């Protein structure tokens, strides 16, 4: 039979048969069968063709013993049967169905005489080897795949098939497995086309005393298999899954009687455990797993295949199966496997898990599965801390964990998911506590005249002003804003005054319609990008439940704490401490002459800190001290030492801070030290103040210290800062009375009459929370990393600015006004993006002033970035951020270690990006959508 199958239909037999009339075929078939029966009966112990023993019994015993029971069958007889059967099968395959879909005569004969079943029993008589199974599987595969009439409707054909299949369960021979899965896949295709067979499959199983849906059960072991077999099995299962969506019986069976969902979910756990626990990171710039990364990792490929399969199942399966699978993934993979993996003890392991999580989020597309992952991140608590809080806290960690965490949040923000944005940022903005009470009405206001845009652009450091860039970089001059298309501009005319165009309607009404002004071309690109990203964000957010405009949901609605599940509420101090733990890293190298930090924190670890945070901190500190060597795999010593060196040099620059701080520290009791070190972040110190359990005395000292540190840190910038930061200045002077009274009622802009300091005179603001205004850990950690822009590496800054630009594109007025409205008056404790940008600008100006070669370095960095961009464009990547231009001339070499130079260039571009986003918001967010 094998040879027959192998030759298949290529040997032209079908063509030969075409000419033969059906009657002759029938006669031939019957003759062959008669010969076969002779041989069969000769070896049948009962010598009877009419009474068959119970097949399931035979099946069972044959399956278990596997040996011949009635003496060996001579080889010539076996091959004779095989030859006859070969011909018979061809005749059966080639037979077309009779009139009105009736069985053809051969098929009818096969059914009546129970040919297939008897043949199966016959093969059981003989040694039922893997080769035999293979032959039979191929036989059925050919029948199912090539027959011209439907065969599976007939029990006498279906039953022996099912028996064959069940005899193959638990088989180990790879060949048999391959053929089995192929046949199963084929059967599923038939089922998908003709679901009416489904019932028969169930009944046939029941006849055998089994309640299972055999085809399905046989496929399950192959779910997680790699290679073709696994893929075919998963494809076949998916066919059944989509069948289940319409067939309750199948759905119920799969959900209640099979281990499909648990196998699928726990399989993920199994595959996950075989992933490398530490990734070999190619370079410092690396921050997420790209396709070219994971394609090199077979175990990860396999995991992703299974994850994608889960995704596909959830997409097509019946809701019962979907819900069950999702629940198993949550309780069988995310909680027991991924959560602990996210809290491993070393930075590298945690970094690796974070990168995996990011990759998984980017792989999953089905909302129900995404929801599972997201609710795990947002709601699950590990050691009583939300996963989300832990992840946010890691943004500020040193080394790659921080960068990888940033990349994860970039993915999260890119999902346009209301729940994510609510937990990350919006819930802190809903109460509107971050702004002065009077400013609430400003939230929804549009920036008609690009005031915010202008203010953002005005932060451009003077060293990066377009005027200072030499021609190839300076694209100011290559576009004409002139609208006088008819009058070709004279290229020799460079005087702007010459090119004013007057449009005169002949009656003395003229208007200047645009002068030939040279524009920053790159800004046009930013506008275009901003437009795209805002409009897609607006579209995406149409499914959201609220507008987040300061009225919907109402500010009173969100009462932090009230919304926490009762009994699960955790003391806020933990979050705060934990979020800031990494700052202790910042502080630690400072204390050079004091007792080693690790011993200190080991002596008196703050009781509230969760264990994993403490461990992580220890690791980080050891890493910094260079004393950290983990097993043999730690290869980053060089990098660590570099970073430590960099850190030290920076600390020298921060000399005054250092002395100031260590002085004070000496006077502080140990337990407050962490809080002290953490408190460097001005934004968070109030939060700590409200929650810390220390005495008032200590608090006062502590606050005092913070204040001195803060003013110290921004001392120089402050003088310049005052001007741009004070929002009141931008407010217009008192306007005359409206004289066009008929319009006053309809004037849509609500901001009039409201003094920016109105809140001072508004008493008793009802319903306002008394807690210190805080825009949430995520925003503050982002801003505090942004503040360090000059010392951040280029790729960190690219990630940071990318995330902020993504956030800024969100159309929700609360978020938009918080990030982009430079006129909004915030509470004094709230730091705004604009303030941080102003601080960065001043840092850059300061550095530019102290270094003579700064302009030269800027140019080199610009060229470097330009070349980088060009290479991306060449590689087919998205064009975008930076201006494109001709290849740079001979470059002054610049090391990436000159972070402050790159930061200056990037900062300037980021300002343009933000400005463009602000400007597009003023248009796009107000376009009335078609109802």
């Amino acid at each position, binding site marked *: 039979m094998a040879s027959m199958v192998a030759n298949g239909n290529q040997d032209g037999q079908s063509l030969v048969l075409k000419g033969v009339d059906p009657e002759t075929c029938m006669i031939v078939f019957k003759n062959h069968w008669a010969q076969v029966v002779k041989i069969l009966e000769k070896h049948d112990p009962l010598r009877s063709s009419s009474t068959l023993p119970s097949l399931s019994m035979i099946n069972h015993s044959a399956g278990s013993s596997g040996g011949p029971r009635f003496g060996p069958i001579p080889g010539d007889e076996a091959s004779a049967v095989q030859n006859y059967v070969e011909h018979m099968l061809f005749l059966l395959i080639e037979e077309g169905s009779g009139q009105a879909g009736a069985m053809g005569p051969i098929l009818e004969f096969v059914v009546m005489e129970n040919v297939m079943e008897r043949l199966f029993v016959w093969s059981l008589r003989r040694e039922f080897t893997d080769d035999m199974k293979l032959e039979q599987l191929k036989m059925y595969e050919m029948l199912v795949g090539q027959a011209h009439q439907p065969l599976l409707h007939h029990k006498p054909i279906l039953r022996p098939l099912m028996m064959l299949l069940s005899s193959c369960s638990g088989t180990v021979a790879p060949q048999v497995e391959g053929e089995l899965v192929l046949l199963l896949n084929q059967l599923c295709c038939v089922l998908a086309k003709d679901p009416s067979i489904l019932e028969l499959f169930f009944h046939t199983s029941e006849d055998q005393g089994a309640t299972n849906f055999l085809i399905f059960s046989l496929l399950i072991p192959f779910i997680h298999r790699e290679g073709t077999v696994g893929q075919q099995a998963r494809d076949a299962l998916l066919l059944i899954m989509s069948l289940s969506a319409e067939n309750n019986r199948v759905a119920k069976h799969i959900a209640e009687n099979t281990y499909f969902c648990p196998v699928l979910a726990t399989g993920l756990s199994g595959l996950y455990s075989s992933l490398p626990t530490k990734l070999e990171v190619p370079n410092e710039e690396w921050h997420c797993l790209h396709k070219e990364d994971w394609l090199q990792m077979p175990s990860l490929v396999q995991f992703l295949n299974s994850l994608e399969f889960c995704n596909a199942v959830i997409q097509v399966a019946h809701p019962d199966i979907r819900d069950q699978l999702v629940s198993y993934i949550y309780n069988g993979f995310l909680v027991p496997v991924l959560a602990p993996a996210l809290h491993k003890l070393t930075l590298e392991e945690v970094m690796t898990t974070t990168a995996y999580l990011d990759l998984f989020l980017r792989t999953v597309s089905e909302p129900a599965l995404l929801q599972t992952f997201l609710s795990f991140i947002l709601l699950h608590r590990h050691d009583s801390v939300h996963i989300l809080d832990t992840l946010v806290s890691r943004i500020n960690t040193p080394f790659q964990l921080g960068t990888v965490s940033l990349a994860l949040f970039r993915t999260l923000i890119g999902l346009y998911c209301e729940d994510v944005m609510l937990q990350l940022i919006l819930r802190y903005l809903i109460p509107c506590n971050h702004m002065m009470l009077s400013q609430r009405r400003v939230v929804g206001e549009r920036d008609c005249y690009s005031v915010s845009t202008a203010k953002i652009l005005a932060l451009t450091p003077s060293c990066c002003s377009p005027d200072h860039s030499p021609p190839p970089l300076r694209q100011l001059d290559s576009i004409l804003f002139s609208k006088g298309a008819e009058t070709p501009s004279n290229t020799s005319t460079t005087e702007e005054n010459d090119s004013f165009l007057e449009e005169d309607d002949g009656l003395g009404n003229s208007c200047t319609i645009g002068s030939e002004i040279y*524009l920053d071309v790159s800004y046009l690109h930013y506008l275009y990008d901003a437009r795209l990203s805002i409009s897609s964000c607006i579209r995406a957010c149409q499914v959201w439940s609220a507008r987040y405009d300061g009225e919907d949901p109402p500010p009173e609605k969100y009462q932090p704490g009230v919304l926490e599940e009762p009994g699960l509420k955790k003391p806020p101090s933990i979050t705060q401490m934990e979020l800031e733990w990494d700052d202790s890293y910042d502080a630690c190298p400072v204390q050079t002459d004091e007792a080693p930090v690790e011993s200190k924190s080991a002596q008196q670890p703050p009781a509230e800190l969760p264990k994993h945070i403490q461990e992580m901190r220890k690791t980080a500190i050891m890493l910094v001290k260079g004393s950290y060597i983990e097993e043999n795999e730690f290869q980053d010593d060089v990098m660590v030492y570099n970073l430590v060196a960099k850190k030290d040099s920076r600390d020298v620059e921060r000399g005054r801070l250092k002395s100031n701080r260590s002085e004070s520290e000496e006077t502080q009791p140990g337990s407050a030290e962490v809080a002290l070190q953490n408190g460097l972040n001005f934004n968070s110190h109030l939060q700590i103040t409200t929650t810390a359990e220390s005495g008032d005395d200590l608090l006062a000292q502590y606050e005092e210290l913070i204040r001195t540190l803060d003013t110290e840190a921004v001392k120089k910038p402050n003088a310049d800062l005052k001007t741009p930061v004070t929002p009141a200045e931008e407010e217009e002077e008192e306007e005359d009375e409206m004289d066009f009274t008929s319009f006053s009622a309809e004037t849509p*802009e609500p901001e009039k009459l409201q003094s920016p300091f109105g809140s001072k005179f508004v008493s008793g603001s009802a319903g306002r929370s008394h807690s210190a205004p805080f825009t949430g850990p995520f925003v503050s950690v982002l801003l505090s990393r942004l503040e360090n822009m000059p010392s951040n590496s280029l790729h960190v800054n690219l990630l940071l600015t990318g995330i902020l630009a993504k956030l800024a594109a969100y159309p929700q007025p609360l978020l938009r006004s918080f990030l982009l409205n430079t006129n909004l008056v915030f509470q004094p404790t709230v730091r705004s993006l604009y303030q941080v940008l102003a601080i960065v600008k001043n840092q850059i100006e300061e550095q530019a002033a102290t270094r003579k070669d700064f302009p030269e370095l800027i140019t080199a960095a610009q060229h470097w970035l330009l070349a980088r961009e060009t290479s991306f464009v060449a590689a087919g990547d998205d064009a975008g951020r930076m201006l494109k231009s001709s290849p740079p001339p001979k470059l002054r070499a610049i090391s990436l270690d000159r972070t402050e130079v790159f930061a200056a260039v990037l900062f300037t571009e980021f300002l343009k990006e933000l400005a463009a986003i602000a400007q597009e918001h003023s248009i796009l967010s107000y376009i009335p959508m078609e109802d």
Partner: protein
Amino acid sequence: FLFFWKILPSSNHQRSDVEEQSGHREQRASPARLPFGKKQLPPIPKNAAPITKPASTGTPAQSANGTHASYGPFYLEYSLLAEFTLVIKQKLPGIYVQPSYKSALMWFGVIFIRHGLYQDGVFKFTVYIPDNYPDGECPKLVFDIPVFHPLVDPVSGELDVRRAFNKWRRNHNHIWQVLMYARTVFYKINTTEPLNPEAAVLYEKDVQLFKSKVVDSVKLCNSHLFDQPKIDDPYAISFSPWNPAVHEEAKERMFTYKRRPEDHHKGTQVSGLSWVKPGSTQPFSKDDSPPQS
């Protein structure tokens, strides 16, 4: 451009032949346009090849607020775009405007008067916006043909807008208000300090004669409706008699568009996620969120 499509249904009973001739050409030329009424930055004229300025030209050009002067045009352009979106939002009855191709500072418009003394009047006009907008004077509104009206200059066709906005104030005054005002004057006649004293006097002394003069004026205006636009501009509003070959398809598309508003979102498969129950501020508060444990 779509903004113009919207004209048809509302003006059908008047003249269902409003068609912005060059609009189609423009649209084909730039298919990337989003179907909002938003006007984008003007395309770069083909003949205006990029000019490379000598590197040494110019001193740092800082404008008063510290921003580089090269961004000035962007601010102006976007301020006007913002104004234009406000106009769209207002859905002013019977008024349609379109910024010119050549300048965002010049808007073409048409106003349909549906009842009152000026019933059936179709008046084309042009709005001129000062280039120091929004800090300059009030925009001017000039009718193509001087309508017989106390507040319309009989020679220039300019409407006395300034009486309503004697000082133009940013944030408070908007161009839609000027358009609204232009509409109001035809329904509520004001004769104080007229630009057309004859009309003012007639209205006060001999309303019947005033009325007949208005009727004549309306007729005159409408008889010139199919004239070439006064200002040669691809975006100028021009009317032509109903021609099924030209207009039927456009009309058809307008109505189909109205029926399937999601259409233009296809191809860009961006969809957000939300499991927040409306009225709740809790994540995953929707009822159909599958249970996790």
